[in-house]
């Protein structure tokens, strides 16, 4: 058996191996799964944002042929409410989480009140309309700031003024002093509007219960099946973790919304056990909009202090974070740990302070959405930099340059309680983006265009993000509320045929992990790429891992694989030494072959070694058969990808319409395993971020009704609305992990909203516009121009 010397495939833009299956409709998503005897669930949801349930009458529904049962929250008091797993920011005795079905009171529109189980989905849906629920409406509050004011409607008895937590970071006294002595200060109210993540596939769960063994199997649209298994067993049902198997089949996008523990997981489990039949629930789009988690929703007062010549001296931020009617799984961690601690961005700000008030309101729960806290932070600092540059009449690019953290400052402590930034070199990315945009000539062109009545604007966004969540050294710290490091796992087996199976706690739902991971494995072991299989998504058969989110799967999950590969190689070397009758210290492992240093012609391939290990008749004393290694990797630090994005817009001042003329993205995500996939991630992220700047906004009216409840009302950008994106990269390998990678899944979203808003506001400068809130719809732009 021989293996030819292979070209390295890490760093090559090979196409995603998962795509042929998915784009030809051969994937298996939750709604593709049909089990014999399966019942279908339709939910009765509250039309009120805040109300007491006075009665539920299901007689008419139960009388309908095909309806098997109707259950309410009162039936499920034997299971606990869903847990909040990240009570960050000193949340103490006021955690309120949803139950499988509401009991007594509903606190947002769309909250599930009763479940109808029927032989098919249509019967269930029709029967749900026949369930008579009487409500007594209660006063409603949807605005986070107003919810904390005296006299505001109260959602939970244990949360006076609806406050979830008061959290701060940085040095208040120092920041106050910086402002007291500042030459220049700028202040701006900044609203980071509520968004709805909108994965292409909505969420759902299917449970099968085995009465003989007492085991549940739940298929779920989850980014983190192992975590769901832990939360559902240990916290909700109080059963052994081993009695639940969670399976994520193909998942059609998540963007954070699918990280969390949802009521449908719990009520399908409860009902499947009760009725002895499999139970399926898949939400429709408007249910997803009303009842699955939303993102962002900050109301902030931001202040920045500096010198007249462009040196930033202080930052002070007060934020009200709307967390919705209940706490979702990691909700309190998002506007605290993942927001406040990164607020100073890529700049050396000597005195910074951030205070966050987390608030309950009569709205859907808010939790992580692509970027999770970091887009909010990045938007804030980048808008304030432009605002400051305008105030002192300095070029915004120069203000950035002047305040950048310098290469020699790394590892850099930002004073906000973040782990030290690992590495970075911000100026080259800025310079590259400026050069691509033709910045040197832009201002002249802009002035000329204005003479002709064309209003161009250029926006710069220099960002840093925190990826690879989350080291135990960070989230395990006292006060961060999590208490566990978010490590990741991988098992690698080389079978006797030489085929390699990798199982991991990471799982793809659009990231192309099967491809990226296989590239790493193929190169490290020197086996053909096609001989590597990546397996994921099933708690039975994969080692415990925390799942995929926070741009962590390559940095943390990929490194876990790398560590297992290292162990495999060590064992292979030992066995090769035995096979070659040589000293282990003299063995070299290279390109899939082990040989004695200096004589590569007499090599044993990894295939031959695996065969030997599997047959097991001639192994060194004490060696176990098989090449099979598992690793758990807890990263020592986060990674800190960075870059500069520039956009150029043209504003039609007659209509307020914005045309995105150019979008330039220079990103540094460290080493790239597959540049094509990196580019895809950057593209998708950018469009999702610029959609916040121009289109998207989840709107509740004063009664707590979600007005943007459908895809007709909530403006998801289409391909036609996406600009041509010019990408480039700088490469600063991360010193944190052996792959030198930093993560790329969220970078685009973290960089792009402010990039576009800065451009819009730059275009409107002749009209005296200094700030406007997102999204910059034609109406808002027109009003800003006309001072309305």
């Amino acid at each position: 058996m021989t293996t030819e010397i292979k070209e390295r495939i890490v760093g090559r833009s090979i196409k995603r191996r998962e795509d042929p299956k998915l784009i030809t409709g051969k994937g298996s998503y939750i709604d593709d799964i049909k089990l014999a005897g399966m019942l279908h669930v339709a939910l009765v949801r509250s039309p009120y944002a805040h109300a007491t349930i006075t009665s539920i009458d299901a007689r008419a529904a139960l009388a309908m042929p095909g309806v098997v049962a109707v259950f309410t929250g009162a039936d499920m008091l034997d299971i606990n409410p869903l847990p909040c797993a990240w009570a960050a920011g000193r949340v103490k005795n006021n955690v309120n989480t949803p139950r499988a079905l509401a009991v007594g009171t509903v606190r947002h529109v769309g909250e599930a009140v009763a479940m109808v189980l029927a032989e098919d989905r249509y019967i269930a849906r029709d029967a749900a309309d026949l369930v008579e629920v009487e409500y007594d409406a209660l006063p409603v509050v949807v605005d986070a700031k107003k919810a904390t004011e005296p006299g505001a409607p109260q959602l939970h008895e244990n949360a006076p003024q609806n406050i979830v937590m008061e959290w701060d970071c940085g040095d208040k006294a120092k920041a106050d002093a910086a402002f007291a002595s500042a030459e220049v200060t700028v202040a701006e109210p900044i609203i980071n509007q509520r968004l709805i993540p909108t994965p292409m596939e909505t969420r759902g769960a299917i449970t099968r219960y085995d009465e003989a063994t007492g085991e549940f199997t739940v298929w779920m649209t989850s980014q983190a099946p192992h975590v769901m298994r832990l939360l559902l067993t240990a916290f909700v049902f109080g059963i052994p973790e081993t009695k639940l198997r969670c399976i994520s089949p193909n998942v059609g996008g998540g963007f954070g919304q699918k990280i969390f523990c949802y009521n449908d997981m719990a009520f399908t489990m409860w009902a499947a056990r009760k009725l002895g039949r499999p139970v399926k629930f898949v939400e429709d789009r408007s249910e997803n909009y009303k009842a699955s988690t939303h993102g962002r929703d900050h109301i902030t007062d931001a202040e920045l202090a500096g010198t007249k010549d462009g040196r930033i001296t202080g930052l002070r931020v007060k934020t009200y974070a709307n967390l919705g009617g209940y706490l979702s799984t990691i909700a309190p961690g998002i506007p605290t740990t993942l927001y406040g601690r990164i607020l100073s961005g890529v700049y050396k700000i000597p005195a910074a302070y951030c205070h966050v008030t987390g608030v309950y309101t009569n709205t859907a729960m808010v939790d992580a959405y692509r970027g999770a806290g970091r887009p909010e932070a990045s938007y804030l600092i980048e808008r304030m930099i432009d605002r400051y540059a305008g105030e002192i009449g300095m070029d915004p690019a120069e203000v950035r340059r002047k305040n950048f953290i310098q290469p020699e400052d790394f590892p850099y402590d930002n004073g906000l309680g973040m782990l030290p930034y690992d590495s970075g070199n911000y100026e080259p990315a800025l310079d590259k983006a400026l050069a691509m945009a033709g910045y040197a000539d832009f201002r002249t062109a802009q002035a000329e265009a204005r003479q002709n009545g064309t209003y161009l604007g250029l926006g710069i966004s220099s960002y840093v993000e925190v990826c690879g969540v989350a080291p135990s050294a960070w989230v395990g710290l006292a006060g961060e509320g999590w208490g566990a490091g978010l490590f990741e796992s991988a098992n690698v087996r080389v079978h006797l045929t030489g085929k390699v199976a990798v199982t991991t706690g990471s799982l793809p739902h659009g990231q192309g992990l099967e491809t990226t991971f296989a590239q790493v494995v193929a190169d490290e072991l020197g086996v053909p790429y096609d001989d590597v299989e990546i397996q994921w998504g099933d708690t039975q058969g994969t080692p415990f891992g925390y799942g995929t989110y926070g741009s962590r799967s390559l940095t943390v999950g990929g490194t876990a694989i790398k560590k297992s590969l290292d162990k495999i190689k060590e064992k292979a070397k030992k066995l090769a030494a035995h096979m070659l009758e040589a000293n282990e210290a003299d063995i070299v492992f290279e390109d899939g072959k082990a040989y004695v240093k200096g004589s590569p012609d007499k090599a044993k391939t990894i295939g031959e070694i695996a065969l030997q290990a599997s047959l097991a008749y001639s192994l060194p004393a004490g060696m176990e058969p098989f090449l099979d290694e598992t690793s758990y990797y807890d990263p020592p630090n986060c990674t800190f990808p960075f870059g500069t994005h520039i956009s150029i817009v043209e504003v039609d001042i007659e209509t307020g319409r914005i045309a995105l003329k150019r979008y330039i993205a220079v990103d540094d995500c460290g080493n790239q395993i597959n540049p094509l996939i990196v580019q895809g991630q950057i593209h998708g992220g950018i469009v999702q971020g610029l959609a916040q700047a121009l289109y998207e906004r989840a709107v509740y009216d004063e009664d707590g009704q979600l007005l943007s409840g459908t895809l007709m009302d909530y403006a998801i950008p289409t391909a036609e609305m996406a600009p041509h994106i010019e990408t480039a990269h700088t490469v600063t390998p991360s010193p944190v992990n052996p792959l030198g990678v930093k993560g790329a899944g969220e970078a685009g979203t973290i960089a792009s909203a402010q990039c576009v808003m800065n451009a819009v506001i730059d275009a409107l400068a002749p009209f005296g516009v200094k700030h406007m809130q997102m999204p910059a719809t034609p109406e808002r732009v027109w009003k800003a121009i006309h001072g309305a």
Partner: protein
Amino acid sequence: MRIAGNYTFEATREEVWSAINDPEVLARAIPGCQHLDQVGENEFETTLKVGLQAVRGVYHGRVKIDNLVAPESYEIHVDGKGSTGFLKGNGVIKLRAEGDSTILDYGGEAHIGGTIASVGQRLIDGAAKTLINQSLKALAALIADRRSGGVADTVPESLAVPIPAPVPTAVAAPAPPPAPSIERRKIVVPAHEQLSEAAVVRGAIEDFFTQQPWLPWVVVAFLIGYILGRWK
């Protein structure tokens, strides 16, 4: 949601007042009204089948009237719900005479919830306007009928009201519970006399063309252009 508007009747103020206080008339002028049950002096229950855009569905509701100032104005309070959501509204209806005609001004505020709010919000203003206009148009026709000795003149005087919202209903007394003197009764509107979905849509289209007389010509011009383009 705020609703306001007016409608001009070619009738005296007394005629209009009498019509908008007659449940038999109202039951025929409220879109999709299947029955109107008087449950108190100024209180009614009704079932409406509405088939327009986002407000499509069957609604059950209760309406109360108070602050009557005959023949000038009254206030109405509506509370209705159906499979697609709920509605709660308060409004004022005023009549003023102008020459030989009477102008009905309506205004109010409605709170809607459920699917009609989240799916239908952007359509609801238009739907509400259409329903109200067609309802008032039907009312005008019924008043004209009455003049010529048509329907409903056998009905005893009682109160009923069109509601300024997509989910209209009926009427009810201000304070005390139903006075014993009031006879509970049920008005069932025969299918052919209901203001049907089709009639509402037909009426709305008629109005549209009346307001935009040039529109058919645009359509014709477009078609000619299209045919010429294809022919070429």
